[in-house]
């Protein structure tokens, strides 16, 4: 075959490839890339009015405003606390539960269903349950407070009380919501480790902790990395969780998240500021991108060192 023949075929092949990809690319472009670019442009347009489609000027004013807005700073602080606490805690707890599940051969199926229930239950319904557990009403102090009282300590208002109490409830809630998925993934990851390695380790008299840290953990580490990255992204995007517990006026209760702030800027009571919302959204995008890149670098580094 001649050179040009090869080239023609090559170009043709690539073209067909792109054609196959076209629907997916068009979809992605229209619903993901185009809005992203649009938001990026809005974020630099000062005082954009969506009704009249006009703005005063172009510059970084929106960013400067958002970064000085105490509500935004509160939302960033809340989001970071949420991420830093819930991602490791939920991952480690899920791993412990999965290990336990994996060792109880008979009850595995049943437990998997039970732990998976919250995942398929509506977040708002779970929120309702949390209200019952934590909320103080004129009629009752909430289940948790009743328990706290039974131990002779002073009850706390978890929904409208001090910041740390509210944060605690939010963290417990988020951990509770994300664990089923993690447990499901981790139990199957653990089950997929070839038992032959455990047999080999047993012959060599390897202790249980050493088997876990030297064999099990490295073998499921890609899955753990996956869970950590998606966990970070998910926690940064938390919003409905806070709404489910504290209601829609999150700024007032001091429990807003970044996504909540974006939403409020658009549609909330004090809303109608698409430019500020866009700037906040781009900041969130930058944070998530940075964290994900750092995660990937750390992962590649450890993969090479192993």
């Amino acid at each position, binding site marked *: 075959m001649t050179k040009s023949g090869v080239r023609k075929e090559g170009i043709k092949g690539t073209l067909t490839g792109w054609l196959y990809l076209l629907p997916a690319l068009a979809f992605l472009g229209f619903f993901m890339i185009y809005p992203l670019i649009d938001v990026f442009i809005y974020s630099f347009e000062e005082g954009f009015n969506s009704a009249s489609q006009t703005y005063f000027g172009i510059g970084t004013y929106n960013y400067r405003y958002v970064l000085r807005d105490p509500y935004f700073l509160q939302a960033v602080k809340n989001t970071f606390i949420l991420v830093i606490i819930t991602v490791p805690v939920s991952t480690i707890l899920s791993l412990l539960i999965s290990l336990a599940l994996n060792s109880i051969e008979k009850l595995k199926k049943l437990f998997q269903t039970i732990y998976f229930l919250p995942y398929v239950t509506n977040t708002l319904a779970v929120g309702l349950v949390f209200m019952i557990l934590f909320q103080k009403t004129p009629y009752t102090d909430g289940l948790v407070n009743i328990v706290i009282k039974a131990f002779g300590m002073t009850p706390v208002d978890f929904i409208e009380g001090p910041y740390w109490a509210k944060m605690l409830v939010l963290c417990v809630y988020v951990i509770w919501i994300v664990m089923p998925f993690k447990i499901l993934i981790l139990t199957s990851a653990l089950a997929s480790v*070839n038992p*032959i*390695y455990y*047999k*080999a*380790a*047993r*012959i*060599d*008299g*390897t*202790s249980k902790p*050493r088997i876990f840290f*030297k*064999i099990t953990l*490295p*073998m499921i580490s890609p899955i753990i990395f996956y869970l950590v990255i998606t966990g970070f992204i998910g926690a940064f995007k938390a919003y409905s969780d806070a709404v489910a517990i504290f209601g829609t006026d999150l700024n007032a209760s001091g429990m807003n998240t970044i996504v909540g702030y974006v939403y409020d800027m658009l549609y909330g009571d004090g809303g109608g500021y698409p430019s500020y919302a866009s700037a906040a959204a781009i900041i969130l995008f930058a944070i998530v991108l940075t964290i994900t890149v750092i995660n990937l670098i750390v992962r590649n580094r450890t993969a090479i060192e*192993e």
Partner: protein
Amino acid sequence: MEVRLEHLTKIFPARDKKSSEVIAVNDFDFTIPEGKLIGLLGPSGCGKSTVLYMICGLEKPTSGKIYFGEDDVTDIPSEKRGAGLVFQNYALYPHLTVRQNITFPLENLKGAEKLTKEQRNQKAEEAAKLVQIDGLMDRKPGEMSGGQQQRVAIARALVKMPKVLLMDEPLSNLDARLRLQTREEIKRIQQATGITTIFVTHDQEEAMSISDYIVVMKDGIFQQMDEPQKVYDDPVNLFVAKFLGTPAINVFEASVKDKKLYIGEDQVLGNVNIKDGPVWCGIRPEGFILKDDGALKCSLTGVNVMGRDTSIVSTNPNMTGINIRSIISAEDLKLNSKDSVRFDIKRSKTLLFDKDSEVRIYYD
């Protein structure tokens, strides 16, 4: 260290209502002499791996006892037995380097046996040198060929200097050439270390070529243990006779009448001192003598020249299996007819078996 099995039995209970229990190993009772290489031979699923797993303590016997030398190790946990096991699929830890894989067992040592890092590395180097992979210490298993991985697995099993080395089909994942090379290697390593070694295989040629003794088993039941050539020449039953040898033994439906052995109408042997009646008659491929007026009449199918020897493929109405394979040295080869061939048969290569029990019948 001598290994003695006493009425060793392993029964796997039924998994569910539909299946039944499996007697994987049934009343094993024999002694493996010290410092020898033993080939444990049998078809797939006959319980070979289960025997090894019981010896090293990964499986608990249903009944019976295991002795290492004078010590009853039946209830001793596997890490205290001092047995090394090479798994069929190597079971190297994929995330660790060769060095880390080999030192892994050493890092588990506690108390007085505990070794420093230098000692561990030195032992790993020694073991690696023994199996000739000392240049590959920093590679991961995934970056090595099957044969090299196999050597790493052997080094890992050897590094603690086990009293007994167990190998579960160590060559089954290698290609033909590498298999030949590696089995010589295993023999060399065994002789160099003098460790009592049990080597499991379903390949009779492999077992015959390197073992000091072979143990043949079938469906969990011990059949015979002896030196390879003795088992080949003198099998205790039809199963063992059929299992050993390539090409396989040719089996005929035969009968004995007035101290003469008949295959169909052809009287092939005289002086057969057993009672009249039907028997199985097994003739080794090298037991045929090509002769114009030979006793056994067969139809000729083809001639295969395989280097030094020639194999004549023929058929006979009384044979079992698809054809008769006889090996004739090339200079004796004179075929006068295109479609028939006649053989005399060698007495020493002709084995008789009971028609029902398939147990060997001695007829001299």
